[in-house]
C-alpha cells in the first residue's frame, strides 16, 4: 500500500472568482479561529494514518496566509503527523500574493512544490475571470518563484473561455513554457451551476465556445505540450517527466488513502470516505465541542470501488485494469471496437485511454457496465 497523503484546505480568498466552485469565504477575520480549530482537528487524527509522503496545501488561497500563520500551520502538522524526508509538499498560490519573504518562509517550511494559479496570460481573459493579477504580475511572480530556488513548480491555466481563439490559447501555452515549468494544469472552464457564472450561463448570458471548439482546444493543448516533451498524464495535467507528476493528486486517482483537514475536505481510507462540514463556522463549532467536524461518510462496496476505479482510471494515462472490466457484458466486442476507433489501447493488463479516449472519458465507464 502506498503511503497516505495529507491535504489541508485553506478556505479563504481575498475575492471570490465567479467561476470557482471550491469552498472558500472572504471573511478573513475567521482565519485565526480556523487555524486554531485545524490544529485541534489534526490532533484528533494523529494516530489514524501512517507516515505521509505528500502534503498538499489547497484552497481557497493558501498563499493568503501570512508567514506567522503559515509557520504555525506547518508546525502543527509536523507536531501531529510524520511526513517523510522526501515528501512532496505542495502549495497552491495566487500570483498577487507572492513576495520574496513569503517564498523564503515557504522554503523554510519545507514546501518544495509550487502551483501558480495564473489561469491566463491574456489581460482580457484575466479581467473576465476577475483575477486580481495582470499578465505582467503573473510573469513577475513566476520569476520570483524561480529565483527563490523552487525548481519544481507548475502553472495552472484555463481554456475554453467565451470568445477564446486558438491564437489566445497557443499564446497562453507559449507564455507558460518560457518559464520552463515542470508541471502544467490546463483546465477547461466549467460553468458550474452553483457559481455566479453558472447562473449567467443558465440565463443564456454567458455562452461557452461549444463542443467542437472545446474539443479542438483540448487536442491542441495536448498535442502542443506533448511536442514540447510533456506527459499528458491526466485529463487536465501535464508533467515534464514522471517524477514531476503530482504524487499527491495521483493518490485521489488511484484510491490511495488520504486525510483531508479543514472545512469541506474529504478523506479516504480502506473503503471509507468521509468529508467535513463546508462552513468554516460550523467546522470550528464542531471542533470546539471536541467533535470531529465530519459532515458525512460512506462505506464503499466492492462494486462502488470498482466503478470509481473505472472513471478515475479512464482519466489518467495509467488506465484501468483489465480485471476490472473483463466481466462486463460483451467486453471483448466493446474493447475491440474502442481499440479499432483508437479510443483505447491495451498494454499488458491495463486498458489505457488515448487522447480520443480522454475526450470522452466520462462516457467510457458506462461502456463497461
Amino acid at each position, binding site marked *: 500500500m502506498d503511503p497516505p497523503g495529507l491535504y489541508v484546505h485553506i478556505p479563504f480568498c481575498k475575492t471570490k472568482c465567479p467561476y470557482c466552485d471550491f469552498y472558500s469565504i472572504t471573511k478573513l477575520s475567521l482565519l485565526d479561529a480556523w487555524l486554531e480549530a485545524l490544529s485541534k482537528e489534526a490532533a484528533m487524527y494523529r494516530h489514524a494514518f501512517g507516515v505521509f509522503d505528500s502534503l498538499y496545501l489547497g484552497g481557497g488561497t493558501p498563499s493568503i496566509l501570512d508567514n506567522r500563520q503559515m509557520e504555525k500551520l506547518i508546525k502543527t502538522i509536523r507536531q501531529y503527523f510524520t511526513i517523510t524526508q522526501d515528501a512532496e509538499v505542495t502549495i497552491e498560490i495566487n500570483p498577487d500574493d507572492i513576495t520574496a519573504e513569503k517564498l523564503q518562509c515557504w522554503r523554510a517550511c519545507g514546501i518544495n512544490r509550487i502551483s501558480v494559479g495564473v489561469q491566463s496570460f491574456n489581460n482580457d481573459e484575466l479581467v473576465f475571470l476577475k483575477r486580481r493579477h495582470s499578465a505582467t504580475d503573473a510573469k513577475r511572480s513566476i520569476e520570483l518563484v524561480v529565483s527563490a530556488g523552487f525548481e519544481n513548480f507548475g502553472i495552472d491555466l484555463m481554456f475554453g473561455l467565451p470568445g477564446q481563439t486558438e491564437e489566445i490559447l497557443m499564446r497562453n501555452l507559449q507564455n507558460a513554457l518560457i518559464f520552463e515549468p515542470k508541471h502544467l494544469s490546463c483546465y477547461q472552464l*466549467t460553468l458550474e451551476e452553483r457559481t455566479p457564472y453558472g447562473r449567467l450561463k443558465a440565463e443564456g448570458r454567458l455562452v461557452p465556445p461549444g463542443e467542437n471548439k*472545446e474539443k479542438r482546444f483540448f487536442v491542441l493543448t495536448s498535442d502542443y505540450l506533448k511536442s514540447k516533451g510533456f506527459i499528458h498524464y491526466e485529463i487536465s495535467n501535464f508533467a515534464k517527466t514522471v517524477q514531476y507528476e503530482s504524487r499527491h493528486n495521483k493518490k*485521489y486517482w488511484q484510491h490511495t488513502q488520504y486525510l*483531508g483537514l479543514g472545512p469541506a475536505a*474529504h478523506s479516504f481510507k480502506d473503503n471509507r470516505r468521509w468529508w467535513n462540514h463546508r462552513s468554516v463556522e460550523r467546522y470550528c463549532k464542531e471542533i470546539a465541542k471536541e467533535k470531529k467536524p465530519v459532515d458525512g461518510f460512506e462505506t464503499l462496496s466492492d462494486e462502488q470501488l470498482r466503478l470509481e476505479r473505472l472513471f*478515475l482510471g479512464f482519466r489518467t494515462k495509467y488506465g484501468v485494469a483489465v480485471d476490472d472490466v473483463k466481466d462486463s457484458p460483451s467486453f471483448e466486442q466493446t474493447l475491440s471496437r474502442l481499440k479499432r476507433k483508437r479510443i483505447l489501447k491495451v498494454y499488458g493488463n491495463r486498458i489505457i485511454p488515448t487522447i480520443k479516449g*480522454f*475526450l470522452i472519458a466520462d462516457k467510457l465507464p*458506462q461502456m463497461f457496465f
Partner: protein
Amino acid sequence: MKQIRNFSIIAHIDHGKSTLADRLIQYANLVDARQFRDQILDNMDIERERGITIKSQTVNLPYKSKKGDEFELNLIDTPGHVDFSYEVSRALASCEGVLLLVDASQGVEAQTLANLYAAMEHNLVIIPVINKIDLPSADIDRVKDEIEHELGLDAETALLCSAKEGTGIEDIFEAIVGRIPPPKGDIEKPLAALIFDAHYDSFRGTIVSCRVFDGRVRPGDTIRLMAMETSYKVEEVGCFRLKMEPKKELSAGEVGYLIAGIKTVSDTRIGDTITLDTKPASKPLAGFKEVKPVVFSSIYPIASDDYLSLSEALEKYKLNDAALVYQKDSSAALGQGFRCGFLGLLHLEIVQERLEREFDQSIIMTSPSVQYRFFLTDGRIVTVDNPAYYPDPTEIKKAEEPYIRASIMIPERYVGAVMKLCMERRGVNSRLNYPTAGRVEITFDMPLAEVIFDFYDRLKSITQGYGSFDYEIIDYRESDLVKLDILVNGERVDALSMIVHRERSRERAVKACDSLKEEIPRQQFKIAIQGAIGGKIISRSTITPYRKDVTAKCYGGDITRKRKLLEKQKKGKKRMRVVGSVEIPQSAFMAVLKTDTE
C-alpha cells in the same frame, strides 16, 4: 336483514370518493385516529398516487342511528374508471343504494352521468351528496341546479358535506339508513351469491367478495361457481372491517368474503354466481358477461435474460388480475416477450407500473394497438392486434377498426376546442346536447385507436381540467390503414411499428421521430431516425454525435458526486436496448406512445 344497508359511492375522479369513505370509516370508529391513514380503502401505491380506486374493496360499518337502532352498513367501493365499468356494474348490482358524490365546484361531469345511469339500471336509491362545500369556489346553487336538470334528481334531497373537514357525515349516515331500503332475499332458498370482486392472498388463495341474495353459506359447504362450473369447499366466510373478520355464515342480504381454496383470481369471474353444490340455485343471477380486452401491447424485459423472471412476474400478477390476458410474443429488436390484452389504457398503465414496482421488472411496452380486421383477397378475414402480423398490403381488400361512442361533458366555452380535437381524432357524427345553461354534452363516434393514446390527457389540458369523458365500444367500421415503421440507422425497430390511419400516418411519423430524437442519448456516431410506410420514408430526424464529454477537474471532493452519477447511469443502462449499435432507452419506447407533446 332489516338492519342491513348495502351501498356504494359513485363519483367522478377527484370528487372526493376516497376521502368520504375514510370519513365514514372514521365515524364508525373502526380505527382510532392514531392508526388512521388517509384513504384507507385505496391501499395500493398506485391508487394513492393517482387518487383513484383500481380494485374495489368493501368495508362493513356498524352504525347506531339517532333513533337508537343498530345497523350494519356495507360500503362497497367501486373502481372509478371507464376501463373497469363491468366491475362497477357488478358492485352496483350488489347494492340497494348509492351516494352520488358531486364536487361543489366542479359540478356534474360525464362520468357522474355514466355512473348515475349505471345506478339507475340497477334500480338503486340515489342519494345526491354535494362534497367539498368548504372550497371557496364551491357553488352549491349551481350544482343543485345541475343535479335537478342534468341528472333529473330532486335537488332538495341532496346532502351537503365536506369530507375533508368532516362536516355533514352524520346526515349521510342517517340518509343511508333512512332512505336506502334493506336488502330483500330469502334465506330459505338455495344459495345465490354474486361475485363482485376477488383478490389474491399468498397465504389464503383467492379471497372472493360477494353479495348473498338468497340462502346462506357456511364453512364446510361445497360451493359451485356456476359460470366456471367448478366446485370448492368453503374454508372461511366473514366480513371486511379493514381486516377480515370471520363469521359463522353469510346469509341473504349480507356482503362479505369467502375463502374456499380457489387458487387464483383467474379461477373466478366477476359477475359469476356462487351456489351450493348439493342444493344449487335454479339459474344464475342475471348480468354475467366475460370481459374482453380492447387494447393490446407487448411487454418485453429490458435485458433479454430477464425473460424468465418477467414470465414468472406475469404469472404471479395474473393471480390477482383476471382481466389481463397474455401470450408469448417475440420481436427481432426486443427478443422474447408477451403480447398482452388490457381493458383499456389505464389498465395497461396499471399493469406496467405494478410489474415495475411490485415485481421489480424493468420492461419495455410497445405501442398499444386495438384489434383490427382485415378482409383479404383470398376471402379470409384476419384479426390483428399486433403490427407484426399486419398482412401483406397487396392482399388487403378492406380493413376495419373498432369505433366507440364518446360522450364528453364540458362548459360551453370549450366547445370549439373540443370539437377540433375530436375532428382531428377522426370523430364523426357529432351531436350536441345542452342539459343546462352553460354546459354541453358532445357525443362523437370515434375510432378507439384515436382515444387509447392520450386523448383523455389532451381533453383535460384543452379544457383546463373541466372536460370529462366516457365511452362505449359500438361497432367496427371500414378504414384506410397502413403500417408505420420506425427505422434507427436504417434498421427497422419492429417494437416501434404501429398500425395507423393513412391520413394520420405522416403526423404520427413526424412525432415519433421527434420524440425519439429527444429520448435517445447522443452517441459517438450520427444516428438517423426515420418513419416509413412500406419502403417510403415519410419523416426523418438526426441525432448528432457527441464530440467531447469529460469533466475538467476530479479531486478528493468530486469523486463521490461523480460516482453517484455513474451509478445512476448504470441503472439507466439496464433500461436500454441496443438496436443495431444504437442504445435506445426505455423512455424512448415510452415517448413514442405519447404522441402529442404540445
